């Protein structure tokens, strides 16, 4: 089974392409700092996460602490009851 982190990374690399060096979106890379995230892309990310993991994301949860890196997303998914997301 593909781990949540791999699914998210695949989505991010495919949907938010960049030629930045080390296009290096690592587990802890901040999407904003990497210059790949903007408000439209956050909406795409939310749509993907809701569809892929069957969760509902509240507006008040649209914060970097939940969504601005693969690590943050995995932890957030775990807190939303997605088992094994942060392992």
């Amino acid at each position: 089974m593909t781990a949540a982190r791999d699914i998210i990374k695949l989505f991010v690399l495919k949907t938010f392409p960049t030629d930045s060096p080390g296009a290096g979106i690592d587990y802890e890379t901040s999407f904003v700092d990497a210059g790949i995230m903007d408000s439209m892309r956050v909406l795409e990310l939310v749509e993907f996460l809701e569809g892929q993991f069957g969760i509902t994301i509240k507006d008040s949860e649209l914060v970097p602490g939940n969504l601005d890196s693969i690590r943050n997303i995995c932890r957030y998914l775990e807190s939303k009851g997605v088992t094994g997301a942060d392992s």
Partner: protein
Amino acid sequence: MLVDDFLAMSASRFPGKTAVICGDRRVTYGELDETSNRLAQALVAVGVRPGDRVAVLLDNSIETAICIFGALKAGGAFVVVNHTTKPKKLEFILNDCSASALIIGASQFDSHKAAVSRVGSLRCVVVCGGGRSSRSSSHGIIDLDRDLSSFPSLRPGNRSIDADLAALIYTSGSTGLPKGVAVSHLNVVSAATSITEYLESVADDVIINVLPLSFDYGLYQLLMSVKSGGTLVLEKSFAYPFTIVERIEQERVTGFPGVPTVFALLLQMRNLEPQRFDSVRYVTNTGACLPPAHIPRLKVLFRNAKIFSMYGLTECKRVSYLEPAELERRPTSVGKAMPNVQALVVDDAGEPVGPGVVGELVVRGSNVMMGYWNRTDETAKIVRPGRFPGDRVLHTGDLFTMDDDGFLYFVARRDDIIKSRGEKVSPREVENVILELAGIREAVVVGVDDPILGQSVKAFVVPAEGFGITEEDVIKHCASSLENFMVPRAIEFCSDLPRTTTGKPDLTALRGSAGLPGDRWE
């Protein structure tokens, strides 16, 4: 007055007051003044001379503010480049303006190093963030974090005059190559003075800026806040709207500048309590008209705020604003000329037209740019002689009407520049990038109406046979060369393009095939 005098005066009046907040960092006017003095000394020491261009490739940060004022205090002009600019375009801009110095974030230095090394005019690269030990370059390198303290804290002695170049602001051109809008100190001071006058800006203002400092609308938030002695809450972007909402509440923000995209995203949020925005006394909008349906909802959300609908272009910064009291009566108007500016709607002969007649908007005022950097012919097309000796009139290329009471209404643009999120996108620039990709025979880029973006970028692509190009290939390639806001959001493959009788791609038909009217919305 000079633009850097904004800081000198506010630092003298409010040395201990917070000038800029970014993330969890705060800098006072005294600190901003002193650090920018040191940077100016460093720039002078490495050979930046009066009038030289100092390019800044950083995201919204306190360092960018330091660099803008540091460049000015060194007698130079600043050139803030969008931090998502890719190496090839950065190289073009640096060569175009013969930059003497480049200030760049450490995280971007490596990817841009090869491009930077090909810029012969550079005397120095200043790197922000991170150590410099592993870096090598043919240019002198200053580490902004480590080296500045060794330079004097006094402002360098050389002084500009207000006719000197203060900044180049690069903007998309219809030819596909970015153009540097050259503005003098007088241009900037004039625009900032007029705008702060109608916004009634005061030192108690706390302004939140979610717009890039490379965009004149974002840049002026910093300049005007410093001019008034206010506090600027600088955000990296509007990526996480709820964070901005919290920030507005925490910092008791009084001024909220945005573009329609920002307000549309805000209005999409559910259960947003108006009391969170009770400190906001004004909201400004430009870049494109607010959709009339959004106005009453914004008034509910920002219940204590005046809403200013405005119009401008980089070439003169701002032209007009609508008195907030008129917003309900004339929701699609961008008002009248701002203080110390004249705006007229004229026919092809340059004569003013009557109410309700469509003509080109022309602008007079000391806010009108010096010209496009190194582009005499293009400058002559847009800045033309006026009635008096030395008088200069800016021909905006935008078609307007004026009503019986003198209020202005945008009708359309004369060129095919796309406005997405309030920023200009040149279809030529995007098409040229797409055509670099092997396996593309033809490409046409148009603006497609979008409820959030105003317009989004769409490409119609004719592929060559046998290459198997996918939508993902095209988008990825564009993302490697273009800033994020220019990357097409949709690609449509076709076997051929509809043509006009002269054989050119039929843009009206293409826009129509995207389910849209031919004219752009603004």
